[in-house]
């Protein structure tokens, strides 16, 4: 029989594809464009959901790789007047930097909150440096770094091999959604491989894994690098979609936001963080146009309540709720329904 996790993955993928096809049919152009941003930030969310949820690496500076992806894409695309190679470069640079930082950290046996703070400091250093490039002397090729103002007029995505043919907004939405679903499937696949199970083992008990002879540092480094690459992919799409990138990508807020999404959605799941990302993003846009409310007041209040009411995060919280409801239902129904369905092999 089909393993349960595979069933879930397939169902989620099918739902994702269905929604992707449906949205441009029912929504106007404007809404499609807004949803594109959600999808792009969703990729960014998955990068942290993976390294934290499956690798146990708590990264406070995931924005560094997101921003590096965005900046690499912007600078390369402006110089090349073409977007396919810059797109790949963005992923490559983000992954390389993640690997270098990961090597520095994991082979130094940094862990826990110390690792978190090193990643945070790393992104803050980039933030400070990039913020101080406002002067006209800071150029890479023909791209001006622009400091606090960022890089405007980043070229939109074009068809690979044909720089004159740009994708229109709906096509960009499809591209972003494709990458989101592909990333999700890739991560699910990794989760099912031997390497994926090893990384979970390391997350659950690092000492035990290393005593069993596994190279814990190498495993963590790989997980971190994959996460960096995915964040870089998100950053490149972000820069292409907004057609600008600015140092805020490296800010404390950008890195903390994604932590919040993953945590609110439930660490260890992929769909939960995605839902939390979409939901909180929509909320902060909606709240912006409500004249009677102070945006920060409302957002902050909601976050506080989410933590208190759904301590494990959205998805596990809802799962708990449904278990509880089912348990209640069972108590009332005749006993023959109680028999638990036979479970498939667990990953």
């Amino acid at each position: 029989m089909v393993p349960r996790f595979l069933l879930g993955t397939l169902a989620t993928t099918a739902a994702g594809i269905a929604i992707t096809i449906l949205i441009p049919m029912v929504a106007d152009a404007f809404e499609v464009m807004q949803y594109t941003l959600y999808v792009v930030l969703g990729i960014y969310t998955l990068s942290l959901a993976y390294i934290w949820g499956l690798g146990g690496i708590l990264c406070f500076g995931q924005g560094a790789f997101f921003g590096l992806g965005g900046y690499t894409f912007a600078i390369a695309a402006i110089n090349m007047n073409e977007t396919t190679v810059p797109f790949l470069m963005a992923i490559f640079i983000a992954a390389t930097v993640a690997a270098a930082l990961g090597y520095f950290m994991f082979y130094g046996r940094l862990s826990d909150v110390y690792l978190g703070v090193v990643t945070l400091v790393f992104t803050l250093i980039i933030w400070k440096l990039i913020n101080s490039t406002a002067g006209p002397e800071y150029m890479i090729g023909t791209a001006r770094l622009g400091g606090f103002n960022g890089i405007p007029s980043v070229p939109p995505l074009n068809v690979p091999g044909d720089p004159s043919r740009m994708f229109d907004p709906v096509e960009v939405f499809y591209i972003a959604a494709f990458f989101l679903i592909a990333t999700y499937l890739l991560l699910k696949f990794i989760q099912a491989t031997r390497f994926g199970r090893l990384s979970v083992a390391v997350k659950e008990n690092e000492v035990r894994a290393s005593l069993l002879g596994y190279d814990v540092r190498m495993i963590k480094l790989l997980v971190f690098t994959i996460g960096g690459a995915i964040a870089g992919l998100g950053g490149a799409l972000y820069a292409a979609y907004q057609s600008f990138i600015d140092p805020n990508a490296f800010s404390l807020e950008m890195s903390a936001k994604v932590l919040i999404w993953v945590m609110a959605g439930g660490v260890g799941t992929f769909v939960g963080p995605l839902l939390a990302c979409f939901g909180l993003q929509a909320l902060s846009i909606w709240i912006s146009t409500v004249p009677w409310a102070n945006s920060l007041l409302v957002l902050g209040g909601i976050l506080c309540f989410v933590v208190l009411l759904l301590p494990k995060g959205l998805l596990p919280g809802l799962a708990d709720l449904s278990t509880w409801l089912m348990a209640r239902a069972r108590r009332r129904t005749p006993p023959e329904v109680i028999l638990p369905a036979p479970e498939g092999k667990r990953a």
Partner: protein
Amino acid sequence: MDYGLVVLIEVLRAIAGLVLISIGLAIIFGMMRIVNIAHGEFLMLGGYTVVLSAKAGINTWVAMLVLAPLVVGLVGVAIERCFIRFLYGRMLDTLLATWGLSLFIVGFVTVVFGNTLEGVSVSVGSFEIGRFRVAGYSLFIILVGAVLLAATVAVLRFTRLGLIARGTMQNPNMAAALGLSPPRIYMVTFGIGAALTGLAGGVLAPITGVVPTMGIAFIAQAFITVITGGAAIVAGTGSASTLLGSVSQLTTFATTPVIGDVALLFIAVVLLRILPQGITGRFFRRSL
């Protein structure tokens, strides 16, 4: 010569500034493992207390040294009761909760008190060192920083409260078995951490001024200082502040504030790479 002295005073002031902004966090995060993202907002509340009391005609020094810690301490206790107490042992949830709290406090203060309050100025005057004029207030900040460190050592080491607090943080069950009430001790400790932060916010208000969003400027530095310091609260905060403060301030003198900030961050990273448990993970291990 006179320039050297001026630089020295500025370096000491930078160190004292780091001590001030991080000592409260050292208690709340270092001791209690609450990742308090709203730490910067506690500083802001301290500043607002001083500004609002000064407006109401209360002596600035009283507002700064008495009211600010008192008010923020009470706010801290209230927050602990309503929120934080449900989250002990769930370090990451505290991150999420206090992030929300931080936004909420900024929004709340903006709505209630507005974002345009006159700052306070204290008349300490200034003095001359050779060709340079130095603010007397710099010396006051250095003094407060030193007193704060000394007082924290004294409380933790020589008072019953300090002993009980340290014991409870290490093993709450044992403390409970000995007839103490860990929830109450947590509450008081959190309140003290908040009060120290409020004091710092109050003392810094005359030079930074107060706006609801001012907290964000301090939060990263405070966390980096505490974590670089490591497990021992006072020795850690003191040594990390000294190291980071002097490096960044000297670099700032030699170059620009950006390079100074980057130097601070860079040193912190290198330090953690060499000493993964922070400074007091290796040195001053038996200190507080």
